[in-house]
Protein backbone atom coordinates (compact mmCIF):
# COMPACT_ATOMS: atom_id res chain seq x y z
CA UNK A 1 0.00 0.00 0.00
CA UNK A 2 1.34 3.46 -0.91
CA UNK A 3 1.51 6.31 1.60
CA UNK A 4 -1.28 8.11 -0.25
CA UNK A 5 -3.58 5.12 0.16
CA UNK A 6 -2.75 4.93 3.87
CA UNK A 7 -3.67 8.60 4.29
CA UNK A 8 -6.98 8.10 2.47
CA UNK A 9 -7.63 4.96 4.55
CA UNK A 10 -6.91 6.84 7.81
CA UNK A 11 -9.19 9.73 6.85
CA UNK A 12 -11.99 7.33 5.93
CA UNK A 13 -11.70 5.33 9.18
CA UNK A 14 -11.39 8.49 11.32
CA UNK A 15 -14.37 10.30 9.85
CA UNK A 16 -16.43 7.09 9.70
CA UNK A 17 -15.78 6.36 13.39
CA UNK A 18 -16.76 9.92 14.28
CA UNK A 19 -20.07 9.64 12.49
CA UNK A 20 -20.62 6.10 13.83
CA UNK A 21 -20.25 7.44 17.38
CA UNK A 22 -22.68 10.26 16.62
CA UNK A 23 -25.10 7.74 15.13
CA UNK A 24 -24.99 5.51 18.23
CA UNK A 25 -25.81 8.41 20.54
CA UNK A 26 -28.60 9.61 18.25
CA UNK A 27 -30.24 6.19 17.77
CA UNK A 28 -30.09 5.11 21.41
CA UNK A 29 -30.77 8.56 22.88
CA UNK A 30 -32.69 8.50 26.16
CA UNK A 31 -34.09 11.67 27.67
CA UNK A 32 -33.57 12.45 31.34
CA UNK A 33 -36.37 11.37 33.61
CA UNK A 34 -36.76 12.50 37.14
CA UNK A 35 -37.97 9.10 38.38
CA UNK A 36 -34.86 7.03 37.73
CA UNK A 37 -31.15 7.59 37.38
CA UNK A 38 -30.12 7.74 33.72
CA UNK A 39 -27.86 5.01 32.34
CA UNK A 40 -24.88 6.68 30.66
CA UNK A 41 -23.47 3.58 28.90
CA UNK A 42 -24.59 4.74 25.45
CA UNK A 43 -23.09 8.20 25.99
CA UNK A 44 -19.81 6.72 27.19
CA UNK A 45 -19.52 4.30 24.24
CA UNK A 46 -20.49 6.87 21.60
CA UNK A 47 -18.19 9.59 22.95
CA UNK A 48 -15.28 7.13 23.21
CA UNK A 49 -15.80 6.06 19.58
CA UNK A 50 -16.01 9.70 18.46
CA UNK A 51 -12.80 10.62 20.26
CA UNK A 52 -10.91 7.58 18.90
CA UNK A 53 -12.10 8.60 15.41
CA UNK A 54 -10.84 12.16 15.88
CA UNK A 55 -7.55 10.75 17.20
CA UNK A 56 -7.07 8.61 14.08
CA UNK A 57 -7.97 11.63 11.92
CA UNK A 58 -5.42 13.89 13.61
CA UNK A 59 -2.68 11.22 13.53
CA UNK A 60 -3.29 10.56 9.84
CA UNK A 61 -3.14 14.26 8.99
CA UNK A 62 0.15 14.83 10.85
CA UNK A 63 1.91 11.64 9.75
CA UNK A 64 0.59 11.96 6.19
CA UNK A 65 1.92 15.52 6.08
CA UNK A 66 5.39 14.35 7.10
CA UNK A 67 5.90 11.08 5.21
CA UNK A 68 3.52 11.37 2.26
CA UNK A 69 6.18 11.31 -0.48
CA UNK A 70 3.74 10.45 -3.24
CA UNK A 71 1.37 13.28 -2.30
CA UNK A 72 1.35 16.66 -4.01
CA UNK A 73 3.79 19.10 -2.36
CA UNK A 74 1.17 21.71 -1.48
CA UNK A 75 -1.33 19.15 -0.28
CA UNK A 76 1.31 17.58 1.96
CA UNK A 77 2.00 20.95 3.53
CA UNK A 78 -1.69 21.72 4.03
CA UNK A 79 -2.50 18.43 5.78
CA UNK A 80 0.54 18.84 8.04
CA UNK A 81 -0.59 22.35 9.06
CA UNK A 82 -4.19 21.19 9.58
CA UNK A 83 -3.03 18.20 11.65
CA UNK A 84 -0.78 20.31 13.88
CA UNK A 85 -3.46 22.99 14.34
CA UNK A 86 -5.99 20.25 15.25
CA UNK A 87 -3.57 18.86 17.84
CA UNK A 88 -3.14 22.34 19.29
CA UNK A 89 -6.91 22.93 19.37
CA UNK A 90 -7.54 19.57 21.02
CA UNK A 91 -4.85 20.07 23.65
CA UNK A 92 -6.79 23.17 24.78
CA UNK A 93 -10.23 21.70 24.05
CA UNK A 94 -9.53 18.53 26.06
CA UNK A 95 -9.61 20.64 29.21
CA UNK A 96 -13.31 21.31 28.56
CA UNK A 97 -14.07 17.65 27.85
CA UNK A 98 -13.47 16.45 31.40
CA UNK A 99 -16.41 14.86 33.17
CA UNK A 100 -15.98 16.12 36.70
CA UNK A 101 -18.81 16.41 39.21
CA UNK A 102 -16.64 17.76 42.01
CA UNK A 103 -17.93 21.20 43.05
CA UNK A 104 -15.52 23.83 41.74
CA UNK A 105 -14.80 25.37 45.14
CA UNK A 106 -12.99 22.17 46.19
CA UNK A 107 -10.22 22.95 43.72
CA UNK A 108 -9.64 26.36 45.32
CA UNK A 109 -7.16 28.88 44.01
CA UNK A 110 -3.42 29.42 44.26
CA UNK A 111 -3.71 30.40 47.92
CA UNK A 112 -5.27 27.07 48.85
CA UNK A 113 -8.59 25.29 48.80
CA UNK A 114 -11.72 27.09 49.84
CA UNK A 115 -13.90 25.63 52.54
CA UNK A 116 -17.07 24.05 51.30
CA UNK A 117 -20.14 26.15 52.04
CA UNK A 118 -22.43 24.66 54.65
CA UNK A 119 -25.55 25.13 52.50
CA UNK A 120 -26.52 23.00 49.52
CA UNK A 121 -25.44 25.76 47.14
CA UNK A 122 -22.57 23.63 45.81
CA UNK A 123 -24.86 21.05 44.28
CA UNK A 124 -25.59 23.45 41.43
CA UNK A 125 -22.06 23.00 40.16
CA UNK A 126 -22.52 19.30 39.44
CA UNK A 127 -22.54 18.68 35.70
CA UNK A 128 -24.25 15.25 36.15
CA UNK A 129 -23.82 14.28 32.50
CA UNK A 130 -20.85 13.68 30.20
CA UNK A 131 -19.40 16.67 28.38
CA UNK A 132 -20.23 17.05 24.72
CA UNK A 133 -17.54 16.02 22.27
CA UNK A 134 -16.67 18.51 19.56
CA UNK A 135 -17.67 18.22 15.96
CA UNK A 136 -16.62 21.52 14.43
CA UNK A 137 -13.16 20.18 13.58
CA UNK A 138 -14.75 17.90 11.06
CA UNK A 139 -15.23 20.95 8.84
CA UNK A 140 -11.45 21.18 8.61
CA UNK A 141 -11.17 17.52 7.64
CA UNK A 142 -13.77 17.90 4.95
CA UNK A 143 -11.85 20.98 3.78
CA UNK A 144 -8.72 18.81 3.52
CA UNK A 145 -10.50 16.25 1.34
CA UNK A 146 -11.87 19.06 -0.84
CA UNK A 147 -8.31 20.38 -1.21
CA UNK A 148 -7.16 17.00 -2.55
CA UNK A 149 -9.72 17.12 -5.30
CA UNK A 150 -8.90 20.77 -6.01
CA UNK A 151 -5.21 19.97 -6.40
CA UNK A 152 -5.95 16.96 -8.57
CA UNK A 153 -8.02 19.12 -10.90
CA UNK A 154 -5.29 21.78 -11.05
CA UNK A 155 -2.72 19.06 -11.80
CA UNK A 156 -4.81 17.65 -14.63
CA UNK A 157 -5.23 21.05 -16.25
CA UNK A 158 -1.49 21.86 -16.22
Amino acid at each position, binding site marked *: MKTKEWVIFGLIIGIALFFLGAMISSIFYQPNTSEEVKDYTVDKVSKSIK*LIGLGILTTTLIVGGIVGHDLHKHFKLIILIIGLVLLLVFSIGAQFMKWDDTPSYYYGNSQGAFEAPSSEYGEEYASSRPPSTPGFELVVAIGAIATVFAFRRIKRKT
Partner: protein
Amino acid sequence: MSKKDLMILGIEIGVMLFFIGVAVNIALGPTTLTYRTPQQISSFIKLIGMGFATLSILIGGIFIDKFEIVTRVLLVVFGVVILCVNIGIISLVPYY
Protein backbone atom coordinates in the same frame (compact mmCIF):
# COMPACT_ATOMS: atom_id res chain seq x y z
CA MET B 1 14.58 1.22 12.86
CA SER B 2 15.81 4.62 11.73
CA LYS B 3 15.42 7.89 13.64
CA LYS B 4 12.73 8.97 11.20
CA ASP B 5 10.62 5.84 11.80
CA LEU B 6 11.05 6.30 15.55
CA MET B 7 9.79 9.88 15.29
CA ILE B 8 6.74 8.89 13.25
CA LEU B 9 5.98 6.10 15.74
CA GLY B 10 6.33 8.58 18.62
CA ILE B 11 3.84 10.99 17.05
CA GLU B 12 1.37 8.19 16.25
CA ILE B 13 1.52 6.66 19.75
CA GLY B 14 1.50 10.07 21.44
CA VAL B 15 -1.51 11.53 19.65
CA MET B 16 -3.53 8.32 20.00
CA LEU B 17 -2.68 8.04 23.73
CA PHE B 18 -3.82 11.64 24.22
CA PHE B 19 -7.21 10.98 22.64
CA ILE B 20 -7.56 7.65 24.48
CA GLY B 21 -6.87 9.54 27.71
CA VAL B 22 -9.68 12.02 26.99
CA ALA B 23 -12.03 9.11 26.18
CA VAL B 24 -11.04 7.24 29.38
CA ASN B 25 -12.15 10.20 31.51
CA ILE B 26 -15.64 9.99 30.01
CA ALA B 27 -15.77 6.18 29.84
CA LEU B 28 -14.89 5.61 33.50
CA GLY B 29 -17.68 7.88 34.66
CA PRO B 30 -17.77 11.21 36.41
CA THR B 31 -14.96 12.19 38.75
CA THR B 32 -16.46 13.00 42.14
CA LEU B 33 -15.03 14.14 45.43
CA THR B 34 -14.50 10.58 46.61
CA TYR B 35 -14.02 8.75 43.28
CA ARG B 36 -10.84 10.16 41.67
CA THR B 37 -9.82 7.17 39.51
CA PRO B 38 -11.00 8.61 36.12
CA GLN B 39 -9.06 11.82 36.72
CA GLN B 40 -5.89 9.97 37.75
CA ILE B 41 -5.86 7.44 34.90
CA SER B 42 -6.87 9.93 32.21
CA SER B 43 -4.35 12.58 33.31
CA PHE B 44 -1.59 9.95 33.34
CA ILE B 45 -2.41 8.68 29.84
CA LYS B 46 -2.95 12.20 28.42
CA LEU B 47 0.32 13.54 29.82
CA ILE B 48 2.33 10.57 28.53
CA GLY B 49 0.68 10.93 25.11
CA MET B 50 1.17 14.69 24.84
CA GLY B 51 4.76 14.34 26.09
CA PHE B 52 5.56 11.74 23.43
CA ALA B 53 3.90 13.80 20.67
CA THR B 54 5.55 17.11 21.59
CA LEU B 55 8.96 15.47 22.04
CA SER B 56 8.77 13.66 18.70
CA ILE B 57 7.57 16.77 16.82
CA LEU B 58 10.23 19.05 18.30
CA ILE B 59 13.19 16.66 18.22
CA GLY B 60 12.19 15.35 14.79
CA GLY B 61 11.94 18.88 13.43
CA ILE B 62 15.33 19.92 14.77
CA PHE B 63 17.52 16.84 14.28
CA ILE B 64 16.19 14.80 11.37
CA ASP B 65 17.68 15.95 8.06
CA LYS B 66 15.66 13.69 5.75
CA PHE B 67 12.61 15.98 5.68
CA GLU B 68 12.12 19.02 3.47
CA ILE B 69 13.08 22.35 5.00
CA VAL B 70 9.47 23.64 5.06
CA THR B 71 8.31 20.55 6.95
CA ARG B 72 11.13 20.90 9.47
CA VAL B 73 10.39 24.59 10.12
CA LEU B 74 6.69 23.83 10.57
CA LEU B 75 7.45 20.98 12.98
CA VAL B 76 9.77 23.13 15.09
CA VAL B 77 7.37 26.10 15.18
CA PHE B 78 4.35 23.98 16.09
CA GLY B 79 6.39 21.88 18.53
CA VAL B 80 7.40 25.02 20.44
CA VAL B 81 3.84 26.45 20.33
CA ILE B 82 2.30 23.17 21.56
CA LEU B 83 4.92 22.95 24.33
CA CYS B 84 4.23 26.54 25.47
CA VAL B 85 0.44 26.04 25.37
CA ASN B 86 0.74 22.85 27.41
CA ILE B 87 3.01 24.51 29.98
CA GLY B 88 0.34 27.23 30.30
CA ILE B 89 -2.48 24.69 30.66
CA ILE B 90 -0.59 22.66 33.27
CA SER B 91 0.07 25.82 35.29
CA LEU B 92 -3.52 27.10 35.09
CA VAL B 93 -5.79 24.07 35.55
CA PRO B 94 -6.02 22.01 38.79
CA TYR B 95 -5.23 18.78 36.89
CA TYR B 96 -4.48 17.98 33.24
